[in-house]
């Protein structure tokens, strides 16, 4: 049976985790489990940039990965980056098992605005489904209304839709079916 694990990294806000578990389940269609919380190793911290190295964290996740996890969505409050880019909202293994997302830049407070719980939850859902989409092999979609559209700014996150477009929806369903069949065969 296929399972999606939600992995809290450095204690993200519990409400966000609960909301995401609830909203993602009908779309993914798998059992959703909560993994034991994980701490980011200090070596992943870049003091000069005051950010955490996304790829470094993903490599740590590989070490603590649940054996029965079909996919893992790791969520953190910390600001993430990669050496080439000033920040990333998240990163995923294309067609792999692990996706990582940060709530830091999804919060209006990051931009000096008043906190808005609903807005943050809405953005978190978009980012979670987008990164999970990558683990199902989906690439960026040219349709701006699709959840798989690229977003390099918070405005672009807000502008894009909350669903897969027709094409991406088909690709997502096919990939999910294929993953489930492979899992059944291996059992």
């Amino acid at each position, binding site marked *: 049976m296929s399972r999606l694990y939600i992995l809290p990294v450095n204690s993200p806000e519990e409400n966000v985790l609960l909301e995401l578990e609830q909203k993602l389940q009908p779309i993914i269609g798998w059992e959703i489990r909560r993994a034991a919380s994980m701490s980011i190793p200090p070596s992943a911290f870049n003091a000069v940039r005051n950010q955490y190295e996304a790829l470094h964290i993903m490599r740590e996740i590989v070490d603590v990965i649940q054996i029965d996890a079909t996919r893992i969505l790791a969520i953190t409050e910390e600001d993430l*980056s990669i050496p*080439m*880019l*000033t920040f990333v909202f998240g*990163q995923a293994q*294309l067609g792999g098992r692990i996706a990582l997302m940060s709530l830091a830049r999804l919060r209006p407070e990051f931009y000096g605005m008043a906190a808005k719980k609903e807005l943050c939850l809405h953005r978190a859902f978009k980012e979670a489904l987008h990164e999970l989409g990558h683990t199902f092999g989906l690439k*960026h979609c040219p349709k701006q209304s699709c959840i798989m559209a690229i977003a390099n700014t918070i405005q672009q996150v807000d502008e894009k839709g909350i669903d897969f477009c027709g094409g991406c929806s088909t690709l997502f369903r096919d990939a999910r079916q294929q993953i489930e069949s492979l899992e059944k065969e291996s059992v």
Partner: protein
Amino acid sequence: MNTQWNILVVDDEEITCESMAAWLREDGYSVDTASSGQEGLEKTRLKEYAIYFIDLKMPKGIDGIETMMEVKKIYADASVVIITAYATVDTAISAMKEGALEYIVKPCNPQEISMLVSRIIKVKNLERENTILRQKLLGQYTFNDIISKNAKMLEIFSLVKEISSLRSTVLIQGESGTGKELIARAIHFSGDRVDKPFIAVSCAALAETLLESELFGHEKGAFTGAVNQKQGKFEIADGGTILLDEIGDISPKLQLDLLRILQEKSFYRVGGSEEIKVDVRVIAATHVDLMEAVKQGKFREDLFYRLNVINIHIPALRDRIEDIPLLTKSFLERISHELGKSVSDISEGALKKLMEHQWPGNVRELENAIERAIVTCKEYVLSENDFQFLNRKEEKSWTIPPMTLKEMEREAIIATLKRTEGNVKEAAFQLGIDRSTLYDKIKYYNIPR
């Protein structure tokens, strides 16, 4: 977004390579990584990349700029983006001077890189589209390896298609290097004899006795050295086509033998008594004016009419200069590839120079000139300087024998009228005078028309 393009990230920091690769893969690109300039070059030799992200400072081996220069030797059109954490104006200018498309300082805003990549890919897509359209256009003007958009050549292409399956003899006339053999091949390979042999014989290359034996074969002991029986080209070509190139150069005896073959479709081997019957389509080619040779008694009139059932006259390259750009691009692509050189284009100035040249050796001379220029070219684009050797030839070809200005004018008018096949309007245009003036001069110089 686009799965057809490959990107290579070259950086000595593995985490930089891998994270950048993962980020670009999400965008649909096929991304490879290399941890040194050397490894990047090895990968480049195996695969072409649309974009190279190359780190400027790599402590081991060659640095980013050197890597870029080596990459450009392999793929002149490679789009290289230099990455550095140590930005200085000097290094930026140096990288751009050496051919970098962009220069970015890491860490970079994701939107900036995203826009940069899509901008480069947009240009690559346009370039690819342009290449496809160019190839299609070239295909439109290509007939059995012959490239032309000249009206007379296009008429020849249609004629070749019409006559390809007939048995009639064909006489192809044209200056050396105009592609007479290519037309002969086109006739053979477009017709119903395609599965049978196509044999080309250069009549000018062999002495009379050797040519006789070459064409008709010989019996054992027919002459000194004839230790075995040998089949001639006519027997080998049975069912197919024989091209008799430089037919104007054959001896009176061979002219008679050929006449017999054309009339009776049979011949005897040298020293043989057995009549051999063959079904061979004869195509003759010559650079000399055979009619003139007939008038001078050098060529049999009856053979001329037997050969001249279908006549094709291939225009000289100087009379179809509109073909020079097409031919040049085609030769450039093929020869550059064959020689393993990165020369991929020709400057407008160089092309103009080629279009102004007289090309006495026609298409063959043009092909040789392009090859010579590519061999000596140190850049990615052929320039006027690469064709300096044509100047010397040009000077030589303009050596004028002693004559008066009037005699020169008469010669110029005769040559132009010959080139335009008696078309006075066209000749007047080429000579830069009006039609009535040309008529006056024709009358004045008593030029026969």
